[in-house]
């Protein structure tokens, strides 16, 4: 048994296996929380009904910005959670606003007529706001506090617990 060759082989293979093993439990999808802790990019957009909305105007109150589409299944799963939060926390001063991502406004109107919502949905022409927020998929939800800092970004559907705990924190 040539110990040098054995050792050399193990030195090369063991790290490789270790790296691959360390990859488990990681979500390979590319996400980033780079924006957490920074100032939320301000935007002025129009709602589906043509009214204007400015994030600057919402300063002084916590705001939840949710990017979604009608073709996204997890968004539909998340919708009831958002509805409940809006009902509970809206009166407490939290703004809820949704931004449509890569979708047609006609489809969005039809969906909302069916499922209802308590907050405005904004059109994002050219996807510039989504790009500014580093949106890499839907749904993505940004929790912005009263000073305009992004306290938390959630990629994927927001669960009830995360929604409640983050909102409690912000109030």
């Amino acid at each position, binding site marked *: 048994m*040539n110990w040098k060759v054995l050792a050399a082989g193990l030195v090369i293979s063991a790290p490789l*296996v270790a*790296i691959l093993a360390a990859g488990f439990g990681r979500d*390979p*999808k590319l996400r980033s929380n780079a924006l957490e802790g920074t100032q939320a990019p301000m935007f002025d957009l129009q709602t589906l009904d043509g009214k204007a909305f400015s994030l600057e105007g919402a300063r002084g109150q916590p705001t939840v910005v949710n990017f979604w589409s009608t073709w996204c299944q997890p968004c539909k799963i998340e919708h009831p959670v958002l509805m409940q939060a809006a009902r509970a926390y809206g009166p407490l001063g939290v703004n809820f606003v949704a931004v449509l991502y890569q979708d047609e406004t006609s489809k969005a109107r039809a969906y909302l007529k069916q499922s209802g919502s308590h907050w405005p949905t904004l059109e994002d022409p050219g996807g510039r706001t989504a790009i500014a927020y580093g949106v890499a998929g839907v749904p993505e939800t940004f929790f912005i506090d009263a000073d305009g800092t992004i306290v938390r970004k959630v990629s994927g559907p927001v669960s009830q617990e995360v929604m409640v705990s983050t909102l409690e924190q912000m109030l």
Partner: protein
Amino acid sequence: MIPELGRGAVLLGLAACSVGAVTGMWAGKTGREDVWRWTRIAAYVFAAAITVATLLMEYALITHDYSVKYVAEVGSNETPLTFTIVSLWSSLEGSILLWAVVLAVWCAVFAYSMRDKHPDHAPWALGCILTVGVFFTFLVAGIANPFERVPNPLDNGPGPNPLLQNHVLMIIHPPALYLGYVGMSVPFGMACATLLSGRMPTAWARAIRRWMLVPWAALTVGIILGGWWSYEVLGWGGYWAWDPVENASFLPWLTATAFIHSSMVMERKEHLKGWTIALVMASFLLTLLGTFMTRSGVFNSVHSFTQSPIGPVFLGFLAVALLVSVVLLAARVDLLTVPDAKLAGPWSREFAFLGNNLLFSAFTFTVLLGTVYPLLNEVMTDVQISVGEPYFNRMSVPICMGILFLMGVGPALPWGQTEPNVLLRRLGTPIAVTAAIIAGCLAMGIREPMAVMTFALSGFAGVVTLRELVDPGRHRARALGEPLMKALMTTWRVGHRRAGGYIVHFGVIIIAVAIAASSVYRSEAEMTLREGQTKSFMGYDITYTGTERIDEPHRWSRVARFDVLKDGQPLGDAEPRLNHYKKMNQAIGTPTVMTGLDEDLYLSLVQVDPEAKMASLSIVVEPLVWWLWFGGGVMLLGSIIAGWPSNRRRKVA
């Protein structure tokens, strides 16, 4: 009924290959004929059982038996029949069943072929291959069981991923790839047999190379078909993206190619044995790595199956296989090194082969590093980064230039030591041709360094390869006074391994030229047309003539029609489409590719507005793409010629 029958067949197969694995090792150790016979029978039973299981699964798929779990996952009443048959390998569990059946059949073929040959090694080898079979069959019987019974079956299913229903290449690409991947287990088993038995007779070394040739050829075809599929289906006009799973298929191809060359030295000169055996084992280990990457959910890739508990099990098997390989190599180092032998000096073909090994190993290492690096970085620093095309292209271009160069110099070098000026004389004509090509390129205005260098080196290697193919025939014709054609055919028939090898080289050269031309001289544009409007690009006149909606059971499509003229001559109608599948959010486009010998016109539909009568198109013009697929065909032809069983080999009793 089918869930139970199918699982039963799989369990029978598992039992058979477990028995065979044990008896194979036992027969190898003791040399007992009867135990060897049991091993072979076990292999046949294994193959029969898993084949039955596969046929049962196909039956369930075709008859839409939703009580079978796998059918419930990928079946659908609306999917066309062809794609239903093919959905056997469209999802995780089915693909592992496919792996198992291909492996089982390889075992049976190996057992039959070795029934009266190599009694010292074949039992060990079959035992090892069956051990690999135990792992995969265990997966099919256990964690990845496609035959599980669904308690309350529905009467319809979601259908396979729409991207996998778009094109006919989906039918051949995976089986070819699997034939290659799985086939690497056989030379691996044979290499283990060498190390376990402690002997390496030349006949066995030659046998290992023969059994590597088929998987190698299949893998080559599989990879090229993958590129072709990506080109025809995905809509971006490219054929290789250095995606992690693409790289995973490329890595074993690299080491297998290096092995095929290195084994020539091993056969003739008893040198480079360590390299050769290590390369065989690496090829198999890299296929394990490849299937791990596809199925573990650790890598972000076009090919990823969904995350599943299979990942850790695969990694475990990979770790065990790595350990066994390293231990065996370390234990038998004396077998692999020859103390008094002298590798011929630097101006010899042996040395060129050694250089070739080094270059291919460097290539393998580079691609592996680039693929695994983002994972490494994230584990260490928790920051996600990308290592994408720019890096891989930058690193592979010099290496490929080196390979092209060696393809020219290597065959020109004789075996054994020689003088440098002999070499220069032999390379006289090729160098002259190279210079002429460079001059020609510059004269024609081709100045990009990568393109010029590729064309020049391709000419260099091409001339040498052509000469090596034709010289034996020419010498024979002159010496025997035979007509040239007859002499050529005789030398090619008798020396078919050599001739086939050089034809494969030709294929590689064609592919190199095609890649250089299509990447450097690619032109893109976007245009929006009103109905009836014509716009031009690169000599093509494109007129939008209208749109139509087509409804099919599993999808509805919007087709846009365009009349295309090339340099004033009608080229045909282009009908790129946007397909909307049930349950898929965004439309999946089917591009139209109009192939010519000189270039391809690639039309991808971006948007159609029937009311406004407008259509937006993305256009790519890429030269010499057809030659890529043609080069692949040449490589396949060369491998068939090289691997054809020759009548001269007589069975040694």
